[in-house]
């Protein structure tokens, strides 16, 4: 394959991934790793690195829009960021410096993808927790105000410790699998800390960029970020996500969402199948023998 063809194909693939990610709410990163590893035979660590870069691109773009609306809770995001960043660094260190079998990564990826799809599809409930002075959440200033019809409606939160624990897992998955882990972040803020839904989704987006930064630095420094792979992916996913977001605003996409969620489910099963039959390592062995020959 020539350089030109490779770039064009990666760009087109990332364009679709960004579009599907924005439409389904799963985020773009989740399809990049299967696309790169199974579709183009890119070695796992390089694929994870490119995926993390693309995650920073999409989350920063979306976070800019949300911040303008003023519903992102910077304090809650920053507090929880300690846990996610720690998890993310740990995850990236495990992948980069310990020889985790690639098939295992593939299987975990598939399982996490399925959980993500289910969590995204579930019915969401909106919470309004009272602000209770004296609680840990209150002392940590984990509260805020949501603009509702021109007035500020106050909201509080609960269980900052348990929330942080889930956040650490979200971070770990992000570093391990090259994804944003947004769905798990929302789970922590929405179901555990009981934040209003709008606040948890926007704050999660705000956090994803920093999480992906913490883990991608390790991949970057170790030399796994290759411009020929990461750049077309980044460019494609940004444009794809923009088109996806615009489409979401214009038309009712319930049907489309269902179809794409099904596609994501099939990709997940395909990942698990490939992992459990040793296809990833077969590719990797072939690749390792070829590179050592050179």
């Amino acid at each position: 394959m020539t350089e030109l063809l490779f770039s064009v194909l990666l760009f087109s693939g990332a364009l679709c991934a960004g579009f599907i990610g924005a439409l389904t709410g799963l985020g773009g990163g989740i399809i990049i790793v299967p696309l790169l590893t199974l579709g183009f035979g890119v070695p796992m660590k390089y694929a994870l690195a490119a995926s993390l870069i693309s995650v920073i691109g999409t989350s920063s773009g979306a976070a800019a829009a949300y911040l303008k609306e003023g519903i992102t809770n910077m304090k809650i995001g920053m507090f929880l960021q300690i846990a996610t960043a720690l998890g993310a660094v740990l995850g990236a260190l495990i992948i980069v410096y310990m020889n985790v079998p690639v098939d295992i990564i593939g299987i975990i990826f598939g399982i996490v993808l399925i959980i993500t799809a289910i969590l995204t599809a579930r019915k969401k409930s909106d919470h309004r927790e009272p602000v209770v002075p004296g609680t840990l959440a209150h002392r940590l200033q984990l509260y805020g105000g949501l603009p509702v019809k021109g007035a500020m409606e106050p909201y509080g939160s609960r269980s900052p410790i348990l929330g942080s624990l889930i956040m650490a897992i979200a971070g770990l998955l992000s570093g391990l699998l090259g994804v944003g882990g947004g769905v798990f972040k929302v789970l922590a803020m929405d179901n555990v800390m009981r934040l209003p839904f709008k606040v948890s989704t926007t704050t999660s987006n705000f956090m994803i960029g920093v999480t992906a930064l913490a883990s991608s630095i390790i991949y970057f420094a170790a030399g796994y970020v290759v411009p020929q792979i990461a750049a077309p992916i980044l460019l494609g996913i940004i444009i794809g996500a923009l088109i996806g977001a615009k489409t979401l605003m214009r038309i009712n996409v319930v049907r489309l969402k269902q179809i794409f969620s099904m596609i994501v489910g099939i990709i997940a099963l395909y990942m698990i199948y490939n992992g459990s039959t040793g296809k990833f390592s077969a590719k990797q062995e072939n690749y390792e023998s070829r590179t050592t020959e050179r």
Partner: protein
Amino acid sequence: MSQELQKDKLGIAIGNILRYGVWTAFFLSLAGLIGIIIQHGNAAFDPLTLPVQPEKFSVAVLWQGILNFNPLHICTLGLLVLLATPLLRVVFALFGYLAERNYLYFFITLIVLLIIGISCWLGMSK
């Protein structure tokens, strides 16, 4: 009221950093990629020939490449700008909390920066 206004300004400033950062990264890496394609578009690229143990990222090599307008390194610079975007956002928040005299959050933000710093150090040194 003035405090509310200040907070809003901080939010808008952070929003702008994110927007400009992403687009700067976008165009730098696009320019780099176009350069790579112009130079080596017809050469073969096989992801399977990527080294198992790649060379570590080096600031000196990157700097030299940028000075020579090497498209590969321009592209890498674009990706680095992208990485710097969320980092700048955290740094901005740090000064924002300091200005608000919110020392608890100044400290929390400092910890987050420290983790990112350690991550950078671990990646470069190991």
